[in-house]
């Protein structure tokens, strides 16, 4: 219980500092909006089968915009020189990592909700009847993305060329998550039975658990100097 | 006949890649040797100048 309260303190600190400037969340949302517009232009108005390409576009936008927020998780701490202060918190490195995962997750989720609403308008989709399964898929996908993203954010904070190396690290590792999430979203949008999504969901859950476990075992090594 | 061409290009590209890698290793070793040489010649100089007075 105390662990959760401590964890929440760090999350709340990040949320507050973001609320003061709103710099990151605004740029993430604007960026995703722009990418969606670009996609609409690039695909033209007469797309044959919208339902087959929609999941792909959605997840590409999520990952590209999510990547903008990732670098901030540890990059900002290091820029302001507050990282050593954060590490002095009476919380294990794993706790600090988890707090950052929760923070990244919240920011990414806000961006995703925004993107999804724009998406529904632009591509004229009716998501209401399938909101629950889609929400579950997005939840699992975003959790995995935040888990590895936060880990790599801490890694790239220790490098010279932060953003470039972050995307090079994140993209190949997210491939299984992306495939499973797109496949699951596609199945749901095609109106198939929820049972058909189980294989994809299994991969998403396995992805989340494996990377949270690896982070649990190795995060100490990443922040030690 | 085209099969031979593919076969030939497959093998030659493989060997070219391997030789480029070996060559890069040799080059890295050369540069290290030059560095060692520099350090040892500098050290020698220092030793000589200290031996004089």
């Amino acid at each position, binding site marked *: 219980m105390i662990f959760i309260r401590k964890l929440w303190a760090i999350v709340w600190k990040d949320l507050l500092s973001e609320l003061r400037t709103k710099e990151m969340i605004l740029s993430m949302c604007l960026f995703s909006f722009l990418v969606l517009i670009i996609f609409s232009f690039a695909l033209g108005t007469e797309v044959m089968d919208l339902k087959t390409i929609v999941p792909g576009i959605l997840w590409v936008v999520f990952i590209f915009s999510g990547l903008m927020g990732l670098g901030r998780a540890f990059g900002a701490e290091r820029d302001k020189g507050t990282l050593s202060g954060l590490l002095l918190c009476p919380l294990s490195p794993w706790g600090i990592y988890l707090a950052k995962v929760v923070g990244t997750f919240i920011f990414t989720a806000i961006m995703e909700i925004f993107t999804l609403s724009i998406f529904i308008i632009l591509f004229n989709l009716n998501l209401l009847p399938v909101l629950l399964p889609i929400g579950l898929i997005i939840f699992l996908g975003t959790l995995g993305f935040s888990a590895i993203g936060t880990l790599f954010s801490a890694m790239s904070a220790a490098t010279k060329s932060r953003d470039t190396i972050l995307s090079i690290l994140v993209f190949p*590792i997210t491939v299984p998550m992306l495939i499973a999430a797109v496949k699951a979203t596609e199945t749901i949008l095609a109106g198939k039975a929820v049972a058909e999504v189980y294989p994809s969901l299994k991969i998403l859950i396995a992805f989340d658990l494996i990377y949270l476990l690896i982070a649990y075992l190795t995060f100490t090594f990443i922040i030690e100097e | 006949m085209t099969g031979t061409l593919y076969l030939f290009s497959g093998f030659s590209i493989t060997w070219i890649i391997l030789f480029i890698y070996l060559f890069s290793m040799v080059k890295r070793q050369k540069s290290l040797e030059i560095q060692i040489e520099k350090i040892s010649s500098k*050290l020698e100089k220092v030793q000589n100048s200290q031996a004089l007075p």
Partner: protein
Amino acid sequence: MTKRIFEIAFEVVTFLLMFAAIYAIFIYAPIEKTMGIVQKIFYLHVPAAFLAFSAFFITFLASIVYLYKKDQKWDVIAYCSAEVGVLFCTIVLITGPIWAKPVWNVWWTWDPRLTTTLILWFIYLAYLMLRGVVRENQRANLSAVFGIIGFANVPITFFAIRLWRTIHPVIITSEGINISKPMKYTLLLTFCAFFLFFLSLLKNRIKLERLKINTENVKAVYEEIFSS
């Protein structure tokens, strides 16, 4: 002294085996009936793929041992193995399409094995890049963690791609090569030759890396003494 003789013998054996392998591939092994002469790329492609995976596996193990023991030796092994692995993986990714084009009439297909290899290649290139840009005092730790993450990604990528592939038309069902006995022996011989070649490459790369580290240490000490 005996160590030196052993090393020379090792290299001579590697060299001779390599020649024997080339002889076996081009002269001893029969030409496959359905694919024709191009099937001989098989003897290059399969051992290279096996060695690339083993190299990445060595990186994975050495990374774990490094984090456990904190001995720089293991970091060097992980690094050198990753580099040699990327080399062999590049060979696999180039010979693969050259073999596929005349046989399947496509350069590339999103088969789970092919795609997993491609992703693995990207991951270990990222590993090498990470080592290049990371701060020196954290290099070994971060790359060890990434070496572990990269290999843990292999099975999950494989399963995810297998899932994804089912909605696409299947171009290849199975490779369907009837391997005759001479082919089997040739493959075995090339396997041994490539394996020894890989070992000597890795050994020399590790030696070179140690030399580099030693030189840098000497240089640092030297500069420290003479700057004051």
